[in-house]
């Protein structure tokens, strides 16, 4: 496998004109650089082929194997039926809710930060980035303490005598979406901030100069400029949620079981490896679909831009 990927490029067709000495020298140098590159690329490529590509390939094979050794699709049929289908749909629903919430919150924060002076923006971004490197497990635990029946949030709400307090915020969908959003938020903020920082501030000002109202400027100028970032961040967040395990497993109730929990359950408790493999491959296909969508959106945008230029 490594061989096929690392095979040297086919030799360039012999130039008709006799190459000068300079060209030969350049080619020799470039061949040396190529050999050097192949030599250095080998470790990582071999490593990932053995410990990343091959295991996934093995999972795919296992998901297609029947008990009698033949080929079958019935593990996929099982995965897309009854309770398992419900879990898949739950996963899609929670991922969509989380991505939407992360996008809205991320948009607000990124918009605010992109208006700040560099020093302040840097400080705020530290508060965004540092949690990203703190174990999601620990942050989830923090949310469990915060959202409990006698947690800080409910205590505060009861103290303010909000009607209905204390609320049930844990072991239901509210808890899962809050916890997962806080894990995904740094991604959306960073992506959106990068896009917003690149926006020419004179464009909204120009629109205002020509008499556009604030709402129109936001809708017709700002939003289209940020849209690529929103699409990217949304899809990326959705993909990352699909296979996410920790927070839903700790903060959700029985109705918030996600596919990753189901896979873990099947492998660890039921020894149902084939079924787990089929579920894993379904997750993988959904991820590929998301990545493909990203790429389609990008090429459509590029095409539109090229048309605009010519």
């Amino acid at each position, binding site marked *: 496998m490594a061989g096929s*990927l690392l*095979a040297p490029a086919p030799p360039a067709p012999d130039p008709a004109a006799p190459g000068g000495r300079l060209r030969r020298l350049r080619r020799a140098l470039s061949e040396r*650089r190529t050999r050097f*590159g*192949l030599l*250095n*690329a080998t*470790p*990582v490529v071999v490593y*990932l*082929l053995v*410990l*990343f590509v*091959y*295991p*996934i390939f093995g*999972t795919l094979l296992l998901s297609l194997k029947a008990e009698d050794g033949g080929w079958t699709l019935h593990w996929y049929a099982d995965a897309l039926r009854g309770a398992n289908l419900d879990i898949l749909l739950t996963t899609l629903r929670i991922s969509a809710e989380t991505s939407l919430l992360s996008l809205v*919150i991320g948009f607000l*924060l990124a918009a*605010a930060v992109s208006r700040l002076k560099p020093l302040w923006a840097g400080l*705020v971004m530290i508060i*965004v980035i*540092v*949690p990203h*490197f*703190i174990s999601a*497990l*620990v*942050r989830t*635990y*923090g949310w469990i*303490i915060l959202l409990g029946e006698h947690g*800080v949030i409910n205590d505060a709400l009861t103290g303010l005598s909000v009607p209905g307090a204390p609320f049930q915020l844990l072991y239901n969908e509210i808890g899962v979406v809050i916890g997962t959003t806080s894990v995904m*938020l740094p*991604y959306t903020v*960073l*992506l959106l901030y*990068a896009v917003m920082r690149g926006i020419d*501030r*004179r464009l*909204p000002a120009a629109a205002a100069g020509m008499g556009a109202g604030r709402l129109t400027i936001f809708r017709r100028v700002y939003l289209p400029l940020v849209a690529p970032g929103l699409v*990217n961040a949304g899809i*990326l967040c959705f*993909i990352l949620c*699909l*296979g996410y*395990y*920790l927070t839903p*497993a700790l903060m959700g109730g029985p109705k918030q079981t996600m596919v*990753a929990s189901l*896979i*873990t359950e099947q492998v660890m408790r039921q020894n149902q490896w084939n079924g*787990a493999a089929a579920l*894993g*491959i379904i*997750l993988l296909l959904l*991820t590929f679909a998301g990545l493909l969508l*990203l*790429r389609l959106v*990008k090429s459509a945008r590029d095409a539109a831009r090229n048309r605009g230029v010519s």
Partner: protein
Amino acid sequence: MIALRSTLAGRITLTVCSTLILLFLALPIVLIVVTSFGEDAFGSFPPDAWTLDWYTALFADGSKWPAALSLSALVASLTTAFSLILGMTAATALVRSELPLRSAVYGLVLAPLVIPQVVVALGLFLLFEPAAMLGSPLAIALGHTVLASPIAVMILMATLKGIDERLEDAAASMGASRLTVARRITFPLAMPGLAAAAVFSFITSFDEFFISQFLSSVATVTLPVQVFNVLQFDVDPTVTAISAILIGVAVVALALIGVVRRLSGTGKQDGLLPVDTAAGLPAGSETS
């Protein structure tokens, strides 16, 4: 610079919103650190009385934490070593040479960042189970390296791009061998990047839960798996203390990178924080 002036009301709304959002990010973390010093582990906030009992209980006789802590440290060290080797060679290949199928190699290197971790973990489980390697620290480290090496590669690629190639060429033209150039020119200049890659590989492994869970056995339980088990079954207050320690490790690691950046004057060098590139990953066309 000409820019649209924001209204006072708009500015106030945005400030209030962003303060709330920052609290949303920081509160769970601050809460754990504060609660870990409180006498009543799950009680009122802020705590009524302060204590270090939970920290001393961590290392009391019969505690499960020291074993988990040292296993995680061992696995993270192995992962760091593997991922630095892979990262150095891969970054050199991708930045400093003419590589056939470059975008395929680059895509392969970055793929572990977007593929669902449960799929990676399941695949590794199916690979190591027949080999009877479940529970081996080496197996867990090999698994973690799949996740850590892309980060190391990206950091080191950014580092190498920031090093003027003419310095290496100049040394080579004066007769330095390739090894000497690497040792005397590239390596010292890449030092901050190497430090960052090492730190990020270490915390990636140290905090990794999912692969560890699939690859651990009853006898070998890494720290995050132990924390998860405690949270799922029998919450005891020492878990707050260990969580605070995990937070401390991450903060110290990030601070270290900040210091290295400052000392080496590479503050402007992009990519030392892998999130910049990791988050932008699918935006590039080279994935999958």
